[in-house]
């Protein structure tokens, strides 16, 4: 078989990386560097992110639709959202994109220990953020309820949806760290890249959501 015999790209079957051949971190890393473009797994995550982002788009669109229909925003008697602490927190959350991406790079380079370390670092910060946010949410619910008016309804809907996405991200990170205790494979390498991508998306969405919600106080 001559190499040019087969297909576009001039690559023969023998020269194309085979996912199943990667049984350890080194082979997985070598293989990941030889493939063209994002893996199907990354495409799958991109689809999830696309549809979730559109969902948030619908929520945020609703927020502004109701806002422009309303004479006062937030309505009389409903407290304005606090600005400073949430803004700092969301900034902290956004910085976890850095260790997440570093974890993905480390996985691609076949460096298992570094991958774990970056993931663990990100997870600690994310857990801290999440814990404070839940505490804060409970606190806010004492002052206003989603049943008060349309403003509160969309406020808590947006906030709740965002927290749910952070929570899913935490579970994904936990699961990934669990997987990585027994070494790095192609599958786990893909998972690291994909989950890092998920976190970038969630962080961006959180920025948008919090920005939207805080705009009522500006």
């Amino acid at each position: 078989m001559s190499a040019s015999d087969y297909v576009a790209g001039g690559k023969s079957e023998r020269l194309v990386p085979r996912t199943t051949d990667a049984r350890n971190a080194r082979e997985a890393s070598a293989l990941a560097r030889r493939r063209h473009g994002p893996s199907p797994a990354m495409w799958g995550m991109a689809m999830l992110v696309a549809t979730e982002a559109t969902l948030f788009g619908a929520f945020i669109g609703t927020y502004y639709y109701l806002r422009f229909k309303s004479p006062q925003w937030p309505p009389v008697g409903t407290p304005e959202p606090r600005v400073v602490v949430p803004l700092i927190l969301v900034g902290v959350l956004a910085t976890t994109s850095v260790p997440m991406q570093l974890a993905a790079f480390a996985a691609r380079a076949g460096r298992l220990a570094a991958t774990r370390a970056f993931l663990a670092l990100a997870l600690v910060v994310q857990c801290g953020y999440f814990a404070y946010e839940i505490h804060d949410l409970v606190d806010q619910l004492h002052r206003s309820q989603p049943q008060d008016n349309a403003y509160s309804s969309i406020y808590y809907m947006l906030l709740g949806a965002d927290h749910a996405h952070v929570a899913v991200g935490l579970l994904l990170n936990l699961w990934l760290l669990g997987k990585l205790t027994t070494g790095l494979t192609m599958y786990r390498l893909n998972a690291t890249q994909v989950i890092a991508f998920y976190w970038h998306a969630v962080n961006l969405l959180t920025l948008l959501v919090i920005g939207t919600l805080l705009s009522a106080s500006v």
Partner: protein
Amino acid sequence: MSATLPPPAPAEEMVERLERMWQSRPGVIGWLMTTDHKRVGLLYFWTTLALFGAGGVEALLVRTQLIRPDNHLVSPSTYDELFTVHGMTMIFFFIIPMTTGAFGNYLLPLMIGARDMAFPRMNALSFWVFLGSAIFLYVSLFMGLAPNAGWFDYVPLASRKFDPGPNIDFYCLAIIFNSIASTLTVANFITTIFKLRAPGMSFNRMPLFCFAFLAASFGLLFALPPLTADTVFLFADRNLGFHFFDAAHGGAALLWQHLFWIFGHPEVYILIVPAFGIATEIIPAFTQRRVVAFPLVAIAELLVVFIGFGVWAHHMFAVGMPTIVVVFFSAATAVVVVPSTIQVFAWCMTFVTGNARFKTPLLFIAGFIFMFVAGGLTGIMFLAVPFDQQVTDTYFVVAHFHYIIFGAAVFPIFGGIYFWVPKVTGKLYFELPGQISFWIIFLGTNLLFFPMHLVGLEGMPRRIYTYPSGLGWSSTNLAETIGAYVTGVGILLLFANLVWSYFRGAPAGPDPWHGATLEWTISSPPPEYNFAVIPKVSSAYANWDVADREEDRRKLAAGALVLEQGHEQPVSSPIDGWFSEIVEMPHDSPWPILLALALSLVFTCLVIHKYVVAGVMVVLLGLVLAGWHNAEPETQ
């Protein structure tokens, strides 16, 4: 890697190995655990066919109720449930899953030279979730608690205050449930189309069918979330005391309509674009002519969905929007016409410049073009705002969208069924009864839907369960009802033909029509691994590239690109189709059906308002997911 490969084996031995590798488990277990896109496609086909039957019976009941003035066949509440569930069924539970689920799943991998979808287990999951959502909806109908506020379910009629029963909760949850299935399917399609094309099939060599499915997939991916948001809001309003739609608490009833139609209008194109895809495969096969203006048609297929996102408010011209908004959406509606007319004339010119053989599938496509143009022309009338405001919510609209949905989506589905059933069963249908079934359906649907234009202009609003005599509506309604039954007879004849052919039909052989695309290069029915050798592709009409097919045979003899080492599938670069890696595909798995079961439990708990139990079920669902991902494909 390369060093570990065994020496090339003789071709037969490799194919035998492939067969062993890709074989499903026998019996019912094999079907429950299957990840084979062809089996998933067939599961979708049978399920959606049953739902089409249910939706058809609902339609016949509605038509029978309207056969004469002041009729009392069904009660008003039953009537409301019938037309609501009819609409939901035909849109969410028949056309979308029939085109994407059945046609797309079965054919798309075959057309792009792949062995399965990109995420085979997710594909199976989408079917089981879909089945769960269908059962969910129909349980409500049999309990007499089905959604009853119309398929677009306007608030405040759908709010707790005016509809206190669980009917609308079933609506919200069935829609969300169903959307999950659709989203899974289309995420799979998009990834499959971009990544699993046979190496060498660059984007411009992809069949038009795939362009159409890509367009519909992107459409669904972005159109469903607004609907999900809308139904989540409604569920929260109804059950948790939120106020999204309640004008007394700062909400807005029109918010529902905006979000609904941001979904609903692209949805209309999503319903028909896959049908365009079916047409663009049937036409070349029966005219032996590549589709005229191929690149323009491919772009038009994508554009029609894209522009379709900008026209939603033309469903709301009568709600009293500011003039500037009305004019904008009228103009956008004008623009969206052009990609459709491009396609219509491209199909017609392919008919004219090719060598048309009017066999049954092509007759259905000719009928489809007629119906689509007729429905499209009334669609153009709706961009004339004053006229729209006069006839919206009347039977004129009902006529218009049934010409589009029945004529432009269901006709190609019927044509496609005739066209591809020989591929699926290996048996040819009977031509003369096939053509007769076309004429009965064609005349029946026109008798059913054409008079609706007239009765709409004569002032008959839609969704009334009865009407008095003396308004000039009686004879037209009678004609429509007769047309409905004629259509029903034609459809029964169609399926009788197919069933009969399954037992008595002549063998079809691999390529009965001299079809244009890759599925006609393999045996009928296709082997479980689809392609013994990953095919070479140098045009969108691969089966007509004789030299490439010769080369495939030479490669098979030499054992090249058979990929029989495991459950293997080549992955290509997204645009150029460069061979980029070989991945191991998952095999039969119990997890998809278990996950769908867990999800069904979640929705069941939600509809009976047991939110804590629903939370427990979500945990269960998470455990199933963890179980699913416990074993890794490479280590299996």
